[in-house]
């Protein structure tokens, strides 16, 4: 099996609301919505168009989990993830209509690649990528 990257994980005070946002914004599919006894957290399993897993869950209150604030700013470590888009300008407008904020771009990133960064509810930093 090897060390396959298995998922990215978002934490939210309201995981269902966040998951529903990603359903509307990026068409992810919700395939699981469970309450986990051990952590006391709601755990929602979503999948992107390629079958890649995005988990969205709440605070593990039963484990005394303490949460630091989210950040959509530039930072070291795990900073953002990116979605492919077909039409950058119209997607930015559509996502702004859903509450996203444009943070950077769109800019040409070389080789005809167009990129932009948005902040989505969380806040979470997301890159949009339009390939040539």
């Amino acid at each position: 099996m090897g060390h396959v990257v298995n998922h990215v994980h978002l934490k939210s005070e309201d995981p269902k609301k966040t998951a529903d946002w990603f359903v509307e914004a990026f068409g992810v599919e919700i395939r699981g919505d469970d309450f986990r006894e051990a952590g006391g957290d709601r755990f929602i399993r979503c999948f992107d168009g390629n079958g890649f897993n995005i988990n969205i869950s709440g605070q593990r209150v039963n484990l005394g989990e303490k949460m630091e604030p989210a950040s959509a700013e530039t930072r070291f470590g795990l900073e953002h993830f990116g979605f492919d888009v077909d039409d950058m300008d119209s997607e930015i407008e559509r996502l702004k209509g859903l509450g996203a904020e444009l943070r950077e771009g769109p800019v040409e990133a070389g080789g005809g690649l167009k990129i932009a960064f948005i902040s989505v509810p969380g806040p979470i930093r997301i890159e949009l990528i339009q390939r040539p």
Partner: protein
Amino acid sequence: MAFEINHIHLKASDPRRTAEWYVRAFGFKIMSDTVRSFGDRRINCMSSGGLVVNISSERDGEVMAEGYAGSQWGLEHFGVNSDDLQSDIERLGALGAPLLEGPIDIPDGNLVAFIQGPDDVRIEVVQQR
């Protein structure tokens, strides 16, 4: 049609060093290593399973906050599969990635642990069952 995740992105002051850690730790392949017009060195990696992981330094004039490997709202961690969690925890510890939490035996679920990778990245190591 659902959108597809293009990549996940890690930022590092020494992206080559971080990328080489992921090569050793999780068998990533380095596909390219370039300095971009934004002034950053960007290393494009392919993880096992095909997800692209980009690792880059700060861009010209970019102000960076510190990474954080604890629990946090928003984008918190990513998960990597393991065939043998206990031996991987020891192997990754020897590579400089301390155990943060676990192993946790999730009832009716997986055996998981959280480690602290380079640049204060929280990584879940997942032994699927």
